Protein backbone atom coordinates (compact mmCIF):
# COMPACT_ATOMS: atom_id res chain seq x y z
CA UNK A 1 0.00 0.00 0.00
CA UNK A 2 1.35 3.41 -1.01
CA UNK A 3 1.82 6.18 1.52
CA UNK A 4 -0.36 8.29 -0.83
CA UNK A 5 -3.27 5.94 -0.22
CA UNK A 6 -5.96 7.73 1.83
CA UNK A 7 -6.57 4.53 3.82
CA UNK A 8 -2.92 4.50 4.87
CA UNK A 9 -2.91 8.23 5.61
CA UNK A 10 -6.05 8.38 7.66
CA UNK A 11 -6.49 4.92 9.16
CA UNK A 12 -3.31 2.83 9.23
CA UNK A 13 -0.79 5.57 10.03
CA UNK A 14 -2.82 7.27 12.81
CA UNK A 15 -3.69 3.88 14.32
CA UNK A 16 -0.05 2.73 14.23
CA UNK A 17 1.29 5.99 15.69
CA UNK A 18 -1.29 6.03 18.49
CA UNK A 19 -0.76 2.35 19.32
CA UNK A 20 3.03 2.73 19.37
CA UNK A 21 2.96 5.73 21.71
CA UNK A 22 0.26 4.14 23.90
CA UNK A 23 2.39 0.99 24.16
CA UNK A 24 5.47 3.03 25.11
CA UNK A 25 3.32 4.83 27.71
CA UNK A 26 3.17 1.53 29.56
CA UNK A 27 6.76 2.19 30.66
CA UNK A 28 5.79 5.49 32.26
CA UNK A 29 2.77 4.13 34.11
CA UNK A 30 0.21 5.97 36.26
CA UNK A 31 -0.72 9.55 35.49
CA UNK A 32 2.37 10.06 33.37
CA UNK A 33 1.36 7.03 31.35
CA UNK A 34 -2.06 8.52 30.78
CA UNK A 35 -0.49 11.80 29.65
CA UNK A 36 1.80 9.96 27.23
CA UNK A 37 -1.14 7.94 25.91
CA UNK A 38 -3.06 11.16 25.34
CA UNK A 39 -0.04 12.52 23.52
CA UNK A 40 -0.15 9.44 21.31
CA UNK A 41 -3.77 10.06 20.34
CA UNK A 42 -3.22 13.78 19.66
CA UNK A 43 -0.03 13.08 17.70
CA UNK A 44 -1.75 10.36 15.66
CA UNK A 45 -4.53 12.72 14.56
CA UNK A 46 -1.99 15.39 13.59
CA UNK A 47 0.04 12.81 11.65
CA UNK A 48 -3.12 11.80 9.79
CA UNK A 49 -3.79 15.44 8.92
CA UNK A 50 -0.21 16.05 7.82
CA UNK A 51 -0.14 12.98 5.59
CA UNK A 52 -3.46 13.88 4.01
CA UNK A 53 -3.13 17.63 3.51
CA UNK A 54 0.39 18.59 4.66
CA UNK A 55 1.24 20.79 7.61
CA UNK A 56 -0.58 24.07 6.97
CA UNK A 57 1.33 27.32 7.18
CA UNK A 58 0.80 29.56 10.19
CA UNK A 59 -1.32 31.58 10.42
CA UNK A 60 -3.62 29.39 8.36
CA UNK A 61 -5.92 31.30 5.98
CA UNK A 62 -8.63 28.63 5.59
CA UNK A 63 -10.80 27.05 8.26
CA UNK A 64 -9.83 23.51 7.22
CA UNK A 65 -6.19 24.46 7.82
CA UNK A 66 -7.06 25.98 11.20
CA UNK A 67 -8.29 22.53 12.17
CA UNK A 68 -4.70 21.28 12.41
CA UNK A 69 -3.80 23.94 14.95
CA UNK A 70 -7.07 23.52 16.86
CA UNK A 71 -6.25 19.82 17.36
CA UNK A 72 -2.81 20.85 18.61
CA UNK A 73 -4.37 23.50 20.87
CA UNK A 74 -6.81 20.95 22.28
CA UNK A 75 -3.93 18.61 23.01
CA UNK A 76 -1.96 21.36 24.71
CA UNK A 77 -4.93 22.44 26.80
CA UNK A 78 -5.58 18.83 27.77
CA UNK A 79 -1.93 18.39 28.70
CA UNK A 80 -2.18 21.34 31.10
CA UNK A 81 -5.35 19.90 32.66
CA UNK A 82 -3.90 16.38 32.97
CA UNK A 83 -0.56 17.62 34.29
CA UNK A 84 -2.35 19.73 36.92
CA UNK A 85 -4.12 16.60 38.19
CA UNK A 86 -7.42 17.51 36.54
CA UNK A 87 -8.80 20.02 39.07
CA UNK A 88 -12.60 20.22 38.42
CA UNK A 89 -12.74 23.95 37.69
CA UNK A 90 -9.84 23.91 35.23
CA UNK A 91 -11.15 20.69 33.71
CA UNK A 92 -14.59 22.12 32.96
CA UNK A 93 -13.20 25.50 31.95
CA UNK A 94 -11.14 23.77 29.25
CA UNK A 95 -14.22 21.91 27.97
CA UNK A 96 -16.18 25.17 27.77
CA UNK A 97 -13.38 27.35 26.40
CA UNK A 98 -12.06 25.15 23.59
CA UNK A 99 -15.29 25.18 21.52
CA UNK A 100 -15.61 28.94 22.01
CA UNK A 101 -12.06 29.60 20.83
CA UNK A 102 -12.48 27.15 17.95
CA UNK A 103 -15.72 28.70 16.70
CA UNK A 104 -14.51 32.30 16.87
CA UNK A 105 -11.34 31.36 14.98
CA UNK A 106 -13.09 29.21 12.38
CA UNK A 107 -15.69 31.89 11.66
CA UNK A 108 -13.28 34.80 12.04
CA UNK A 109 -13.50 35.87 8.39
CA UNK A 110 -17.32 36.00 8.56
CA UNK A 111 -17.34 37.70 11.97
CA UNK A 112 -14.79 40.24 10.80
CA UNK A 113 -16.91 41.07 7.75
CA UNK A 114 -19.71 42.21 10.05
CA UNK A 115 -21.51 39.56 12.06
CA UNK A 116 -25.08 38.87 11.04
CA UNK A 117 -27.74 37.56 13.39
CA UNK A 118 -28.13 34.14 11.67
CA UNK A 119 -24.37 33.57 11.94
CA UNK A 120 -24.32 34.53 15.61
CA UNK A 121 -27.28 32.23 16.34
CA UNK A 122 -25.57 29.38 14.47
CA UNK A 123 -22.35 29.94 16.40
CA UNK A 124 -24.25 30.05 19.69
CA UNK A 125 -26.02 26.78 18.94
CA UNK A 126 -22.79 25.18 17.79
CA UNK A 127 -21.00 26.25 20.96
CA UNK A 128 -23.78 24.84 23.14
CA UNK A 129 -23.80 21.55 21.21
CA UNK A 130 -20.02 21.14 21.09
CA UNK A 131 -19.64 21.99 24.79
CA UNK A 132 -22.45 19.65 25.86
CA UNK A 133 -21.02 16.78 23.78
CA UNK A 134 -17.49 17.26 25.12
CA UNK A 135 -18.84 17.59 28.68
CA UNK A 136 -20.77 14.31 28.36
CA UNK A 137 -17.78 12.58 26.80
CA UNK A 138 -15.56 13.84 29.62
CA UNK A 139 -17.99 12.33 32.16
CA UNK A 140 -18.11 9.04 30.28
CA UNK A 141 -14.36 8.90 29.79
CA UNK A 142 -13.65 8.16 33.42
CA UNK A 143 -15.89 5.09 33.41
CA UNK A 144 -15.45 1.65 31.87
CA UNK A 145 -11.68 1.28 32.36
CA UNK A 146 -10.98 4.02 29.85
CA UNK A 147 -12.73 2.18 27.01
CA UNK A 148 -16.13 3.87 27.03
CA UNK A 149 -14.84 7.35 26.10
CA UNK A 150 -12.76 6.26 23.12
CA UNK A 151 -15.50 3.82 22.04
CA UNK A 152 -18.05 6.65 21.92
CA UNK A 153 -15.54 8.79 20.04
CA UNK A 154 -14.96 6.01 17.48
CA UNK A 155 -18.71 5.78 16.84
CA UNK A 156 -19.13 9.56 16.60
CA UNK A 157 -16.09 9.97 14.34
CA UNK A 158 -17.13 7.13 12.04
CA UNK A 159 -20.64 8.58 11.79
CA UNK A 160 -19.22 12.02 11.04
CA UNK A 161 -16.93 10.54 8.38
CA UNK A 162 -19.93 9.08 6.53
CA UNK A 163 -22.07 12.21 6.98
CA UNK A 164 -19.21 14.37 5.66
CA UNK A 165 -18.65 12.08 2.69
CA UNK A 166 -22.34 12.14 1.81
CA UNK A 167 -22.17 15.93 2.23
CA UNK A 168 -19.46 16.13 -0.48
CA UNK A 169 -16.46 16.81 1.75
CA UNK A 170 -13.87 14.07 1.42
CA UNK A 171 -11.14 15.83 3.41
CA UNK A 172 -13.28 16.26 6.51
CA UNK A 173 -14.51 12.70 6.10
CA UNK A 174 -10.98 11.32 6.01
CA UNK A 175 -9.90 13.45 8.97
CA UNK A 176 -12.83 12.09 10.96
CA UNK A 177 -11.57 8.64 10.00
CA UNK A 178 -8.13 9.54 11.37
CA UNK A 179 -9.72 10.54 14.69
CA UNK A 180 -11.61 7.24 14.83
CA UNK A 181 -8.39 5.32 14.10
CA UNK A 182 -6.38 7.17 16.76
CA UNK A 183 -9.12 6.65 19.36
CA UNK A 184 -9.37 3.02 18.22
CA UNK A 185 -5.75 2.33 19.17
CA UNK A 186 -6.29 3.66 22.70
CA UNK A 187 -9.62 1.81 23.02
CA UNK A 188 -8.01 -1.43 21.88
CA UNK A 189 -5.15 -1.10 24.35
CA UNK A 190 -7.41 -0.25 27.27
CA UNK A 191 -9.88 -2.98 26.31
CA UNK A 192 -7.14 -5.60 26.17
CA UNK A 193 -5.76 -4.35 29.48
CA UNK A 194 -9.19 -4.60 31.12
CA UNK A 195 -9.63 -8.20 29.97
CA UNK A 196 -6.20 -9.81 30.20
CA UNK A 197 -4.90 -7.57 32.94
CA UNK A 198 -2.53 -4.65 32.73
CA UNK A 199 -2.73 -0.94 33.21
CA UNK A 200 -5.39 1.00 31.37
CA UNK A 201 -4.35 4.47 30.30
CA UNK A 202 -7.85 5.82 30.67
CA UNK A 203 -9.00 8.58 28.34
CA UNK A 204 -7.18 11.66 29.52
CA UNK A 205 -8.07 15.21 28.71
CA UNK A 206 -5.22 15.49 26.22
CA UNK A 207 -6.77 12.73 24.11
CA UNK A 208 -10.27 14.06 24.70
CA UNK A 209 -9.63 17.69 23.84
CA UNK A 210 -7.37 16.94 20.86
CA UNK A 211 -9.40 14.17 19.25
CA UNK A 212 -12.96 14.88 20.37
CA UNK A 213 -12.30 18.63 20.23
CA UNK A 214 -11.02 18.13 16.67
CA UNK A 215 -14.12 16.14 15.76
CA UNK A 216 -16.36 18.84 17.20
CA UNK A 217 -14.49 21.39 15.07
CA UNK A 218 -15.02 19.20 11.97
CA UNK A 219 -18.76 19.17 12.71
CA UNK A 220 -18.66 22.96 13.05
CA UNK A 221 -16.93 23.22 9.65
CA UNK A 222 -19.63 21.06 8.12
CA UNK A 223 -22.32 23.32 9.53
CA UNK A 224 -20.60 26.61 8.71
CA UNK A 225 -19.03 25.98 5.31
CA UNK A 226 -20.60 22.89 3.75
CA UNK A 227 -24.18 23.67 2.71
CA UNK A 228 -24.48 20.21 1.17
CA UNK A 229 -23.87 18.45 4.51
CA UNK A 230 -27.03 17.57 6.43
CA UNK A 231 -27.30 19.63 9.62
CA UNK A 232 -30.04 17.33 10.90
CA UNK A 233 -27.68 14.37 10.54
CA UNK A 234 -25.09 16.21 12.62
CA UNK A 235 -27.64 16.50 15.43
CA UNK A 236 -27.65 12.68 15.45
CA UNK A 237 -23.85 12.69 15.83
CA UNK A 238 -24.19 15.18 18.67
CA UNK A 239 -26.42 12.69 20.52
CA UNK A 240 -23.78 9.92 20.51
CA UNK A 241 -22.13 10.88 23.84
CA UNK A 242 -25.58 11.15 25.44
CA UNK A 243 -26.20 7.45 24.79
CA UNK A 244 -23.83 6.46 27.59
CA UNK A 245 -26.32 6.67 30.51
CA UNK A 246 -28.77 4.47 28.57
CA UNK A 247 -26.07 1.88 27.90
CA UNK A 248 -25.11 1.90 31.58
CA UNK A 249 -28.65 0.84 32.51
CA UNK A 250 -28.28 -2.43 30.65
CA UNK A 251 -27.37 -5.07 33.23
CA UNK A 252 -24.37 -7.13 32.23
CA UNK A 253 -23.55 -8.79 35.54
CA UNK A 254 -20.12 -8.30 36.96
CA UNK A 255 -16.58 -9.56 36.59
CA UNK A 256 -15.00 -10.60 33.27
CA UNK A 257 -18.33 -10.78 31.40
CA UNK A 258 -19.14 -7.19 32.26
CA UNK A 259 -15.63 -6.06 31.30
CA UNK A 260 -15.85 -7.84 27.96
CA UNK A 261 -19.41 -6.82 27.07
CA UNK A 262 -19.66 -3.32 28.48
CA UNK A 263 -17.67 -1.50 25.74
CA UNK A 264 -19.50 -3.49 23.05
CA UNK A 265 -22.88 -2.54 24.51
CA UNK A 266 -21.86 1.11 24.85
CA UNK A 267 -20.70 1.18 21.23
CA UNK A 268 -23.87 -0.58 20.06
CA UNK A 269 -26.17 1.86 21.87
CA UNK A 270 -24.09 4.81 20.64
CA UNK A 271 -24.39 3.46 17.11
CA UNK A 272 -28.17 4.03 17.13
CA UNK A 273 -28.05 7.85 16.80
CA UNK A 274 -24.96 7.55 14.57
CA UNK A 275 -26.79 5.21 12.19
CA UNK A 276 -29.82 7.48 12.24
CA UNK A 277 -27.50 10.35 11.31
CA UNK A 278 -26.06 8.34 8.42
CA UNK A 279 -29.57 7.46 7.26
CA UNK A 280 -30.63 11.11 7.29
CA UNK A 281 -27.46 12.14 5.46
CA UNK A 282 -27.99 9.42 2.86
CA UNK A 283 -31.59 10.40 2.21
CA UNK A 284 -30.66 14.06 1.78
CA UNK A 285 -27.46 13.52 -0.20
CA UNK A 286 -28.80 13.09 -3.73
CA UNK A 287 -26.66 11.96 -6.61
CA UNK A 288 -22.97 11.19 -6.03
CA UNK A 289 -20.45 13.48 -7.73
CA UNK A 290 -18.98 12.17 -10.99
CA UNK A 291 -15.26 11.94 -10.24
Amino acid at each position, binding site marked *: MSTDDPVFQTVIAPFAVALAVVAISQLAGGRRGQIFAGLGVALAVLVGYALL*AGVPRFPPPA*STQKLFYLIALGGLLGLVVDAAGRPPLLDRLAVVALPAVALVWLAWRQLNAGPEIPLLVTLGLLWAGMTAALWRLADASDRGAGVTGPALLIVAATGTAVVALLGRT*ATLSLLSGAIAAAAGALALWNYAASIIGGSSHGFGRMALLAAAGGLAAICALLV*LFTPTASRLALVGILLVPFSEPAARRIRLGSGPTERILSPVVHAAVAAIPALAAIGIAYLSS*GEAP*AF
Partner: protein
Amino acid sequence: MRLAGAIGLAACIASLATAAPAAERFAIDPSHSNILFLVGHLGYSRMVGQFQEFTGEFTFDEQAVEGSAVAVTISAASIDTDDQARDDHLRSPDFFNAAEFPEITFVSTAIERTGDNTGRITGELTLLGVTKPVTLDVTFNQKAPHPLPQYNGVLVAGFSGRTKILRSDFGMSTFAPAIGDEIEILLEVEGQQAP
Protein backbone atom coordinates in the same frame (compact mmCIF):
# COMPACT_ATOMS: atom_id res chain seq x y z
CA MET B 1 8.74 87.99 -16.36
CA ARG B 2 9.35 84.95 -14.16
CA LEU B 3 5.58 84.70 -13.45
CA ALA B 4 4.77 84.89 -17.17
CA GLY B 5 7.28 82.06 -17.84
CA ALA B 6 5.71 79.86 -15.18
CA ILE B 7 2.21 80.44 -16.56
CA GLY B 8 3.46 79.60 -20.04
CA LEU B 9 5.06 76.36 -18.85
CA ALA B 10 1.90 75.33 -16.99
CA ALA B 11 -0.20 76.02 -20.07
CA CYS B 12 2.18 73.97 -22.19
CA ILE B 13 1.98 70.98 -19.77
CA ALA B 14 -1.79 71.26 -19.64
CA SER B 15 -2.07 71.23 -23.42
CA LEU B 16 0.22 68.19 -23.65
CA ALA B 17 -1.87 66.36 -21.08
CA THR B 18 -5.00 67.12 -23.02
CA ALA B 19 -3.44 66.02 -26.29
CA ALA B 20 -2.07 62.70 -24.96
CA PRO B 21 -4.53 59.82 -25.48
CA ALA B 22 -5.68 58.78 -22.01
CA ALA B 23 -6.07 55.08 -21.18
CA GLU B 24 -9.60 54.02 -22.02
CA ARG B 25 -11.66 52.30 -19.38
CA PHE B 26 -13.69 49.19 -20.22
CA ALA B 27 -16.20 47.18 -18.19
CA ILE B 28 -15.98 43.43 -18.77
CA ASP B 29 -19.02 42.15 -20.67
CA PRO B 30 -19.87 38.83 -18.96
CA SER B 31 -22.16 37.71 -21.78
CA HIS B 32 -19.24 37.79 -24.21
CA SER B 33 -16.46 36.75 -21.85
CA ASN B 34 -15.43 33.39 -20.44
CA ILE B 35 -13.17 32.30 -17.60
CA LEU B 36 -12.43 28.66 -18.25
CA PHE B 37 -10.04 26.14 -16.76
CA LEU B 38 -8.63 22.77 -17.69
CA VAL B 39 -7.63 20.23 -15.06
CA GLY B 40 -6.20 16.74 -15.51
CA HIS B 41 -8.55 13.89 -14.69
CA LEU B 42 -6.72 10.76 -13.52
CA GLY B 43 -4.41 11.04 -16.52
CA TYR B 44 -7.19 10.24 -19.00
CA SER B 45 -8.21 13.68 -20.14
CA ARG B 46 -8.43 17.29 -19.11
CA MET B 47 -11.79 18.31 -17.74
CA VAL B 48 -13.15 21.73 -18.70
CA GLY B 49 -14.90 24.00 -16.24
CA GLN B 50 -15.82 27.65 -16.07
CA PHE B 51 -17.05 30.36 -13.77
CA GLN B 52 -20.42 31.77 -14.74
CA GLU B 53 -20.40 34.93 -12.61
CA PHE B 54 -17.67 37.54 -12.60
CA THR B 55 -17.25 41.27 -12.81
CA GLY B 56 -14.34 43.49 -13.61
CA GLU B 57 -12.86 46.25 -15.64
CA PHE B 58 -9.69 47.15 -17.41
CA THR B 59 -8.02 50.24 -18.70
CA PHE B 60 -6.19 50.00 -21.99
CA ASP B 61 -3.72 52.37 -23.52
CA GLU B 62 -2.52 51.10 -26.89
CA GLN B 63 0.37 53.57 -27.02
CA ALA B 64 1.65 52.83 -23.53
CA VAL B 65 0.38 49.44 -22.40
CA GLU B 66 2.41 49.74 -19.21
CA GLY B 67 -0.21 52.22 -18.04
CA SER B 68 -3.04 49.72 -18.53
CA ALA B 69 -4.60 47.76 -15.67
CA VAL B 70 -7.01 44.88 -15.00
CA ALA B 71 -9.14 43.92 -11.98
CA VAL B 72 -11.51 40.94 -11.93
CA THR B 73 -13.68 39.45 -9.20
CA ILE B 74 -15.06 35.93 -9.70
CA SER B 75 -17.87 34.29 -7.72
CA ALA B 76 -16.40 30.97 -6.52
CA ALA B 77 -19.88 29.50 -6.13
CA SER B 78 -20.57 30.03 -9.84
CA ILE B 79 -18.24 27.18 -10.83
CA ASP B 80 -19.76 25.03 -13.55
CA THR B 81 -18.38 21.73 -14.83
CA ASP B 82 -21.65 20.56 -16.34
CA ASP B 83 -22.35 18.20 -13.42
CA GLN B 84 -24.39 19.56 -10.50
CA ALA B 85 -23.16 17.02 -7.93
CA ARG B 86 -19.53 17.58 -8.88
CA ASP B 87 -20.03 21.34 -8.77
CA ASP B 88 -21.42 21.00 -5.22
CA HIS B 89 -18.27 19.12 -4.27
CA LEU B 90 -16.06 21.71 -5.96
CA ARG B 91 -17.77 24.41 -3.86
CA SER B 92 -17.05 22.47 -0.64
CA PRO B 93 -14.05 22.94 1.67
CA ASP B 94 -12.27 20.22 -0.33
CA PHE B 95 -11.77 22.66 -3.21
CA PHE B 96 -13.02 26.25 -3.56
CA ASN B 97 -14.60 26.49 -0.08
CA ALA B 98 -17.08 28.95 -1.55
CA ALA B 99 -19.00 29.54 1.68
CA GLU B 100 -15.86 30.77 3.44
CA PHE B 101 -14.15 32.35 0.42
CA PRO B 102 -16.94 33.54 -1.89
CA GLU B 103 -14.65 35.62 -4.13
CA ILE B 104 -11.60 34.94 -6.24
CA THR B 105 -9.83 38.12 -7.31
CA PHE B 106 -7.14 39.12 -9.77
CA VAL B 107 -5.55 42.56 -9.76
CA SER B 108 -2.79 43.43 -12.20
CA THR B 109 0.45 44.89 -10.92
CA ALA B 110 2.45 45.21 -14.15
CA ILE B 111 1.81 44.96 -17.88
CA GLU B 112 4.45 44.71 -20.59
CA ARG B 113 4.28 44.48 -24.37
CA THR B 114 5.93 41.39 -25.87
CA GLY B 115 4.92 41.78 -29.54
CA ASP B 116 2.75 43.75 -31.91
CA ASN B 117 -0.45 42.48 -30.34
CA THR B 118 0.80 40.39 -27.41
CA GLY B 119 1.71 41.18 -23.88
CA ARG B 120 2.26 39.84 -20.42
CA ILE B 121 0.11 40.78 -17.44
CA THR B 122 1.51 40.14 -14.00
CA GLY B 123 -0.88 40.40 -11.10
CA GLU B 124 -1.97 39.06 -7.78
CA LEU B 125 -4.43 36.18 -7.72
CA THR B 126 -6.24 35.69 -4.42
CA LEU B 127 -7.80 32.27 -3.97
CA LEU B 128 -8.78 30.64 -0.66
CA GLY B 129 -7.36 33.62 1.19
CA VAL B 130 -3.91 33.11 -0.34
CA THR B 131 -2.45 35.77 -2.63
CA LYS B 132 0.19 34.76 -5.14
CA PRO B 133 1.71 36.45 -8.22
CA VAL B 134 0.44 35.08 -11.53
CA THR B 135 1.51 36.01 -15.06
CA LEU B 136 -0.91 35.88 -17.97
CA ASP B 137 0.15 35.73 -21.61
CA VAL B 138 -2.35 37.87 -23.47
CA THR B 139 -3.21 38.55 -27.05
CA PHE B 140 -4.90 41.80 -27.98
CA ASN B 141 -7.50 40.84 -30.56
CA GLN B 142 -9.28 44.00 -31.54
CA LYS B 143 -10.54 47.37 -30.42
CA ALA B 144 -13.27 48.90 -32.52
CA PRO B 145 -16.78 50.30 -32.30
CA HIS B 146 -19.36 47.51 -32.08
CA PRO B 147 -20.69 46.83 -35.60
CA LEU B 148 -24.29 46.05 -34.59
CA PRO B 149 -26.61 49.07 -34.55
CA GLN B 150 -28.24 48.27 -31.20
CA TYR B 151 -24.88 48.83 -29.50
CA ASN B 152 -24.84 52.47 -30.69
CA GLY B 153 -21.21 52.23 -31.74
CA VAL B 154 -19.86 51.58 -28.27
CA LEU B 155 -16.11 50.96 -28.27
CA VAL B 156 -15.28 47.30 -27.57
CA ALA B 157 -11.87 45.80 -26.82
CA GLY B 158 -11.19 42.06 -26.80
CA PHE B 159 -8.35 39.98 -25.41
CA SER B 160 -7.41 36.33 -25.01
CA GLY B 161 -5.35 35.25 -22.01
CA ARG B 162 -3.65 32.04 -20.93
CA THR B 163 -1.83 31.00 -17.77
CA LYS B 164 -1.14 28.00 -15.56
CA ILE B 165 -1.19 27.79 -11.80
CA LEU B 166 -0.61 25.07 -9.22
CA ARG B 167 -3.73 24.83 -7.08
CA SER B 168 -1.66 23.45 -4.19
CA ASP B 169 0.11 26.84 -4.03
CA PHE B 170 -3.23 28.19 -2.79
CA GLY B 171 -3.83 25.39 -0.28
CA MET B 172 -6.14 23.43 -2.61
CA SER B 173 -4.52 20.00 -2.66
CA THR B 174 -7.43 17.57 -2.34
CA PHE B 175 -7.00 14.54 -4.63
CA ALA B 176 -3.82 15.99 -6.17
CA PRO B 177 -2.15 14.74 -8.31
CA ALA B 178 -4.91 12.32 -9.39
CA ILE B 179 -7.04 15.38 -10.07
CA GLY B 180 -4.32 17.56 -11.58
CA ASP B 181 -2.43 20.04 -9.47
CA GLU B 182 -1.67 22.18 -12.52
CA ILE B 183 -4.64 24.18 -13.74
CA GLU B 184 -4.61 25.83 -17.15
CA ILE B 185 -6.69 28.98 -17.19
CA LEU B 186 -8.17 30.33 -20.42
CA LEU B 187 -9.64 33.81 -20.61
CA GLU B 188 -11.64 35.23 -23.49
CA VAL B 189 -12.63 38.73 -22.54
CA GLU B 190 -14.58 41.53 -24.16
CA GLY B 191 -15.01 44.88 -22.54
CA GLN B 192 -17.29 47.74 -23.48
CA GLN B 193 -16.00 51.24 -22.97
CA ALA B 194 -17.28 52.54 -19.66
CA PRO B 195 -18.97 55.95 -19.71
